[in-house]
């Protein structure tokens, strides 16, 4: 299997406030990886570094053996090729929907990458249909619901048919039905050559969307393993602030146990 990303000893900070601290990581092509971590653990920063929006202050990042540096992105051919192959869906869809209509939004990426008009229009129409948002094509973003915005944001990167998809909290703030639709979409990519890296703090979805889970804590990797391995490690999840201790009474007797939403747990015998 070829390697999609290789990060070595990556450091990044926001004006002195550390976000990533000596992070090293390899992601193979076609792998589905979940970056699991609480707020402020460095997930979004890592995704932005993988999308070459930020460059590490220290350490190195390679995409398919090519170094991702500011100098490398001065080569327009490489820049266009990278933006075509690696796409990021932002956590806040309002950030990503800056065009006057849904059609323009989905067409924006291909237009920037100099696609031919006929191919562009055909791909945009196909993507609108795939995401079931054709009826929204002339609608401005401020008249979309939260779920619709998320679908349009996804469509705006899927239109490029990227090899690598970076998703920042794709199901956060969505209603259960839309959440399930997004998870179904992510599951469809299982077994395809697409590399999907999803940042989330929702423990309950990782087993559906990832083959490997990387737990981030304070800017470094706290653990890595299969969803089953990570989800069975309650101490790890507790220390990473991903689950909390839940207290309740059974027949007047108080007891507590680790708890996260979306999974059933075995109640101890009273």
């Amino acid at each position, binding site marked *: 299997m070829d390697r999609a990303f290789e990060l070595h000893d990556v450091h990044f900070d926001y004006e002195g406030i550390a976000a990533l601290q000596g992070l090293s990581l390899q992601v193979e092509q076609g792998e589905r990886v979940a970056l699991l971590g609480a707020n402020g653990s460095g997930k979004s920063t890592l995704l*932005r570094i993988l*999308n070459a*929006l930020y460059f590490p202050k220290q350490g190195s990042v390679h995409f398919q053996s090519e170094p991702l540096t500011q100098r490398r992105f001065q080569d*327009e051919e490489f*820049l*266009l090729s990278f*933006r*075509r192959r690696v*796409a*990021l869906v*932002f956590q*806040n869809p*309002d*950030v*990503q*929907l*800056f*065009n*006057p*209509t849904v059609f*323009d939004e989905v*067409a*924006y*990426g291909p*237009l*920037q*990458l*100099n696609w031919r*008009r006929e191919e*562009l*229009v055909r791909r945009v129409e196909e993507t609108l249909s795939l995401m079931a948002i054709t009826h929204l094509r*002339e609608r*401005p*973003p*401020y*008249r979309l619901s939260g779920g619709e915005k998320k679908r349009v944001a996804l469509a*705006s*990167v899927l239109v*490029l048919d990227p090899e690598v998809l970076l998703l920042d909290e794709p199901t956060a703030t969505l209603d259960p039905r839309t959440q399930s639709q997004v998870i179904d979409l992510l599951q469809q990519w299982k077994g395809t050559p697409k590399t999907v890296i999803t940042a989330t703090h929702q423990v309950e979805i990782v087993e559906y969307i990832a083959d490997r889970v990387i737990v981030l804590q304070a800017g470094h990797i706290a653990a890595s393993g299969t969803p089953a391995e990570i989800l069975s490690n309650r101490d790890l999840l507790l220390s990473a602030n991903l689950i909390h201790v839940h207290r309740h009474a059974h027949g007047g007797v108080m007891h507590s146990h680790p708890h996260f939403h979306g999974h059933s747990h075995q109640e101890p015998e009273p």
Partner: protein
Amino acid sequence: MSGRTFIESTVRGFTEALAHALLSERAAGQAGLLQTFDPRVRVLGLLALVAAVVLCRRIEVVAVLLGLAALLAVSSRVNLASLAKRVWLVVLGFTGLIALPALFLTPGEPWFTIPGLRLSITQHGLRTAVLLVLRVEAAATFATLLVLCTPWNHVLKALRSLHLPAEIVAMLAMTHRYVFLLIETANQMFESRQSRMVGVLPAKEYRNMTTRTAGVLLSKSVELSHEVYLAMISRGFRGEIASLSEFRMKFRDYVGLMAFFCSGAIAVWLGR
């Protein structure tokens, strides 16, 4: 003004701004006369009529142009009562205020002398004031018709295909896009404040609150603009705006454009 009224009226103002935008979109979607023309024809044609209004010097001709604007509004299914409330009354108020001194200060034959005061409205002053008010009314009506009968994204695309620089069009598009988000954010901030209010605060405290809200909104908009820029780079933005024009001129569009230009030219010739 009581505190509650202040917050309620602010929230109502935000809601009305959003409602106006929705109403404009609905009007733009109606099957009226202007809506059947290519957006570029609407932009060029209505701008030509605005130019004609500005160049006309005769009240009668400007009045006819205002009548033409009203006729276009009716045939484009724009509600005249709403147009009168949103444009004609507002323009009358503002321009009337500006034109008022001209009634008395412009030299000429007295037309009416106010009893008890040594003030006379001159004939020339009256003509100047009426011409000014009619000109602004007509120009504002044509401009409003363009916005009401054309979705904003079509106006922008038409401007772009008429070779307005892409950067200016992009700035207009983003301003329109994010002003709604910021209105919504400001609305939520005021509603959240209102939900926690007990009693009435002094006026000074309300002024401070408004200033703080403006400050928070400004810092949010700076943060948002940085994020939007990253989202643009992520999808291949390299400093140049590319756009896709989907417009195609048909025979009726050429006829419409000619009609607009001829009307404007005749008005300028008659009103010289």
